[in-house]
């Protein structure tokens, strides 16, 4: 498909952002949103590997009920590191900071984000936070769990809690800066004709995620500052010995941390909407509902955090109110899932790797979402709180949902990122391995949870061993599954097929520019007068 304005796919020509300049300075002092996106991709992949190793060791330790492989302290440090790294250093930045940074300006026809230097600062703030976490790891790890509950984290733990807290406080600012940048960019930098309802759904979800960044992150920054004050200088606000209430810390922590769960899920939904629309070659069913559902999710998610605290002495009124609202928060997610299914109806389906990830996502996300409703039911949570049922629930959402969306998006936009195509056959094998490995790992944990096995247990009663061995076996398949894309994607950087500007015949402004795009995205700022996802007419070519 000829792309008149720029000779498509001719690498080496300094026409694209990757080959414009090669110096280290051009990478580490870049203000180009595309390069910052790739900087984030590299750093979060490194952290994903670290977190995955911790997960593998945890599953290894749980093969035997008497916990002989690691000491209890080591096990506690492992699951804490797995939690902290995966939540703050992989899942939260994964889609917003990599795909968001790269694609937001492209998809709305802008030259760059609103504040490019602030965008680079957000990456350096992220790496500073990462530095603190690495220091914690090297000094000897922290054993408070990623929830840092007082008074254990402030008084009774004798591990390196303060460096870990500082790491999370600093990385919080990286999220705030990214969120701030995206909000202003979406409001002010849209190209002529790109009204709110002509934007792709992925931009709606990024906007909703940025609202949660702005409205949630400061509260946990303060909560963790109070923990540092109490542990380092004995300026106690939650100290029960002075009459303080550790449940107050839980309120402040979960006021951010439940919306943080939606920070991890919402961009995934956006990616899946793009994939389903592109591989069904069909307009998204109920575009307006899906768009409003994203914003609705970003606001209702701030009303439900109390369902993490049903059994810690919270008043019955508060628990009942939080339980009811937690049922209401499931409605926007439900409408999205049904609309994706309706989008696939009468589409022109191509089952390439991204579509396999998308369909895997829909299946696992539905299962994860509805087990969340189980946990939101008061009587059921009294039984299942802090058991492996909860572990299985949030892994179905995080790995089954966000991870599959991240991998699907990575494959879908890989040609746009690097100008190279990934090997299709290997892609599908990787997708299957991950899907199988994931289910074998985490479905037994639903049963373990209902049997009453508490989470974060280094030593567990012998009757749970069989299911734990099954789960550990699944985790090895999952590890191999993760390894696959890492290998062939890196391989494709040099030996992959040259990618045309629009390999998937998809709609969206990012596909109208060359792969990889020129440094300033568009030769001439595009003018949008067409509806989003207008698959009715042939792929449009705009310079």
């Amino acid at each position: 498909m000829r792309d008149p304005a720029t000779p498509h796919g001719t690498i080496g020509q300094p026409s694209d952002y990757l080959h414009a300049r090669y110096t280290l300075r051009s990478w580490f002092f870049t203000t180009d949103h595309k390069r910052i996106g790739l900087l984030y991709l590299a750093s979060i992949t490194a952290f994903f590997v670290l977190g995955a190793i911790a997960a593998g060791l945890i599953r290894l330790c749980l093969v035997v009920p008497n916990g002989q492989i690691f000491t209890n302290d080591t096990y506690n440090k492992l699951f804490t590191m797995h939690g902290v790294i995966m939540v703050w250093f992989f899942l939260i930045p994964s889609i917003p900071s990599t795909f968001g940074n790269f694609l937001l300006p492209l998809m709305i026809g802008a030259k760059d984000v609103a504040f490019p230097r602030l965008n680079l600062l957000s990456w350096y703030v992220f790496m500073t936070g990462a530095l603190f976490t690495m220091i914690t790891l090297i000094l000897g790890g922290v054993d408070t769990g990623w929830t840092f509950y007082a008074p254990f984290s402030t008084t009774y733990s004798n591990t390196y809690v303060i460096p870990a807290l500082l790491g999370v406080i600093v990385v919080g600012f990286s999220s705030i800066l990214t969120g701030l940048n995206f909000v202003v960019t979406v409001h002010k930098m849209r190209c002529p004709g790109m009204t709110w309802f002509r934007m792709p759904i992925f931009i709606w979800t990024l906007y909703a995620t940025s609202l949660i960044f702005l409205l949630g992150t400061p509260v946990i920054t303060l909560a963790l500052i109070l923990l540092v004050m109490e542990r380092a200088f004995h300026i106690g606000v939650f100290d029960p010995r002075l009459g303080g209430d550790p449940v107050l810390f839980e309120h402040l922590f979960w006021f951010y941390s439940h919306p943080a769960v939606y920070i991890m899920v919402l961009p995934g939904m956006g990616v899946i909407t793009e994939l389903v629309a592109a591989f069904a070659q069909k307009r998204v069913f109920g575009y307006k509902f899906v768009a409003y559902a994203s914003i609705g999710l970003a606001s209702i998610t701030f009303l439900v955090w109390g369902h993490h605290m049903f059994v810690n002495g919270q008043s019955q009124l508060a628990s009942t109110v939080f339980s009811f609202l937690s049922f209401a928060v499931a409605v926007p997610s439900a409408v999205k899932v049904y609309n994706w299914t309706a989008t696939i109806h009468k589409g022109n389906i191509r089952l390439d790797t991204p579509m396999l990830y998308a369909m895997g996502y829909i299946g696992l996300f539905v299962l994860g979402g509805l087990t969340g409703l189980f946990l939101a039911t008061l009587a059921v949570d009294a039984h299942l709180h802090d058991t492996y049922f909860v572990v299985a629930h949030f892994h179905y959402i995080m790995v089954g949902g966000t991870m599959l969306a991240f991998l699907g998006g990575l494959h879908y936009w890989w040609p746009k990122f690097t100008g190279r195509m990934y090997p299709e056959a290997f892609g599908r094998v990787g997708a299957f391995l991950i899907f199988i490995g994931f289910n074998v790992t985490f479905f037994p944990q639903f049963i373990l949870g209902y049997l009453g096995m508490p989470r974060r247990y280094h030593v567990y009663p012998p009757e749970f061993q069989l299911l734990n061995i099954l789960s550990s076996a699944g985790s090895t398949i999952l590890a191999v599954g993760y390894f696959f894309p890492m290998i062939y994607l890196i391989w494709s950087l040099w030996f992959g097929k040259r990618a045309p500007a629009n390999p998937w015949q998809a709609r969206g402004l990012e596909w109208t520019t060359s792969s990889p795009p020129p440094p300033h995205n568009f030769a001439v700022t595009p003018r949008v007068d067409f509806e989003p996802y207008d698959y009715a007419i042939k792929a449009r070519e705009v310079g």
Partner: protein
Amino acid sequence: MNGAPGPAQYPLLLWPQAASHAAVHVDWLIFAFTAVTLLLTVPIFLAITYFALMYRSGRQVDRGHTVDRNVKIELSWMLIPFFLTLAFFAWGAQIFDVEQHAPANSLEIQAIGRQWMWKFQHPGGQAEINDLHVPTGQPVLINMISQDVIHSLYLPAFRVQMETLPGRYTQLWFTANRPGEYRLYCSEYCGTDHSVMDGLLYVMSPRDYAHWLSQAGSSQSLAALGKKLFSNYGCSGCHGVGATIRAPDLAGLYGRPVPMEGGGSVIADDTYIRDKILNPDNNLIAGYKQVMPSFKGVIPEDELMQLIAYIKTMESSS
């Protein structure tokens, strides 16, 4: 003991034993909710796979007049799942409400969670570490507190758990109906040996329970032990009969609203009495000069519970 085989005997346990009516009730809630969930989700899985195969690109099939917006359909599959699942919110809230209000005549066992062991005290004074013996057929209320970090007493056989907080009493009640040996865990992460802080829950028939109590080695009831402490710690010096210092009379105090100095009143429950013993300067009482010394760090948690048990028995007798 002739109860059901111990939990460890089951090679592959797929469903937890239920040892109380409420537990079975929760199980029914889960079954029904799973059924409705499958009703809502299986169509999605089938539809996706069917559409993906049926409308594969290259297959000649009728793809005419696709509609991409239908407010009625979208509203319906927003509200129908919501109202369907809302029924389970109501059912769950109803069971939870029952769990929140213990019957008056329940047997009250005191529990203390501390870093990495449980200590239970029966009204008759019997104390046990990590393991808990309870009778069937009678409501049992466990009044619990933590001595250091937040723990959580979790009894999967009754499908209930409640976190123990430092500085505040929390309650949990159940009525066991099936004798046997079950698991008892700490389910809120509390540090190094969090996973070793578990024990066995022995549910016994009332006869076996009485037998166990008799030979469990305890001379005096909790209240009797509390009465002894009441004099040992010098409380009777001010609060006893014929005391020279003007101190509030503790007879019939438990459950009564106490007038505060700054106006308003506070119900004298366990937490209030414990807090007054440890921090007498909190919640100053109207009409009394505060001279009571603080016993923080002097009286341990289990003796506090014995003192409070004694104060509860102080009707207008002394």
